[in-house]
């Protein structure tokens, strides 16, 4: 499956040999969003009241549990600075931030979240992006990022520190925070998923461009005057 992961992809190119299968999964994900995730997200992010603050707190809690995994990935990418800051962030929010429900590290200690995942680590190690994939429930990905997700489940330090129930609570908290995000970005997500003429192609393009930007790859420069 990872045979297609050769490096050397030109910027802006889309490698999608599994498009027919991806489109079927996209249709499923889109239906799931319309009938479950969107209503849930809308209910959670309604206004500025106690409800949305509660969602934010659960989101903080879930995100905090991801910090040790992030620190490991920063280390694997040869970035000791962000690894140390992620560890410190975890310690501050777990203690002062009341088990991670609050985010004093970000608001008072200038320790914002610094994203790191194993897909990014694989990219730092020189692995090519591979083919585009749309995963059920998760959405847009690539072969490299899908592999990263599997490895992440295995190397996450929290699995060693928490018992099974505690770990599942953490996973649930992360799902809640994702649904909350869906509510906050409702307009943008609706525009791509439910108002576009070809939502599959839009989601694929936007996700790939954004992901490559995250990984520090320069996007293609379009010069319409030269065409």
């Amino acid at each position, binding site marked *: 499956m990872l045979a297609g992961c050769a490096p050397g992809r030109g910027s*802006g190119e889309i490698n999608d040999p599994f498009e027919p299968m991806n489109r079927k999964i996209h249709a499923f994900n889109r239906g799931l969003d319309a009938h479950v995730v969107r209503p849930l997200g809308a209910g959670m992010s309604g206004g500025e009241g106690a409800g949305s603050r509660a969602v934010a707190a659960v989101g903080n809690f879930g995100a905090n549990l991801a910090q040790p995994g992030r620190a490991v990935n920063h280390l694997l990418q040869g970035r000791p600075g962000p690894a140390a800051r992620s560890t410190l962030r975890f310690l501050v929010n777990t203690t002062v931030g009341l088990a991670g429900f609050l985010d004093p590290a970000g608001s008072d200690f*200038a320790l*914002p*979240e610094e994203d790191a995942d194993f897909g990014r680590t694989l990219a730092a190690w020189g692995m090519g992006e591979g083919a585009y994939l749309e995963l059920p429930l998760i959405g847009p990905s690539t072969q490299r990022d899908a592999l990263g997700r599997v490895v992440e489940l295995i190397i996450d330090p929290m699995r060693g520190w928490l018992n099974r129930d505690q770990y599942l609570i953490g996973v649930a908290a992360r799902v809640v925070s994702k649904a909350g995000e869906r509510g*906050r970005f409702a*307009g*943008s997500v609706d*525009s791509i998923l439910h*108002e*576009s*003429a*070809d939502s599959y*192609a*839009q989601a694929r*393009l*936007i996700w790939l*461009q*954004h*992901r*490559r*930007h*995250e990984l520090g790859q320069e*996007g*293609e*420069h*379009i*010069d*319409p*005057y*030269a*065409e």
Partner: protein
Amino acid sequence: MTPMPNEFHHRSRRGFLGLIGAGLVAAAGPAHALDTDGARALIETSLAEVHAVINSGRPPEQMYRAFEAVFARYADVEIIARSALGPAARQASAAAFAAYRQAFQGYIGRKYGKRFREFVGSRIEVTGAKPVKSFYAVTSIAYLRGRSPMEVEWHVSDKSGKSRYFNIIIEGVNMLASERAEIGAMLARRKGDLAALTADLQRAG
């Protein structure tokens, strides 16, 4: 990352000078070649107008029309519309293209205006400008309430005879590339019928 007060002062002063600069660029027209300061000033002026619309508190429909007017004033709508349509633009008659271009402008005003309306209480700071290939890239950072800051890059050219921006790249997501895919899909759905696409665009966004 709270900026020092004097930094704020500096920024606002530069913004003011930028406004004058943009006025000069507009007045000088094609005779005055574009440079990094001119490109920067164009984006700062355009952003100031977008912010004025966002914070005006007008009803959505009026706001979308105001965004469309700002877009028409500072963006090279002609080249963006042409590029989004792709090869079909070359085959279209002048009248058919003009109708499509007009509908496209309204579609952009509504589609991006809806996103901009979520920017209430935000600020965008221009952070730099540099030449890239045959045009200029102006970089800025958008600070939105309750979200991490976003990088927004503007591509500015005077190839049309006037200094205008022709692309916006938000966190790596390229507006021209997205609209090429979207307009391409809309045209394909109408089996290449430009008039039908134009009619669809008048309602879309």
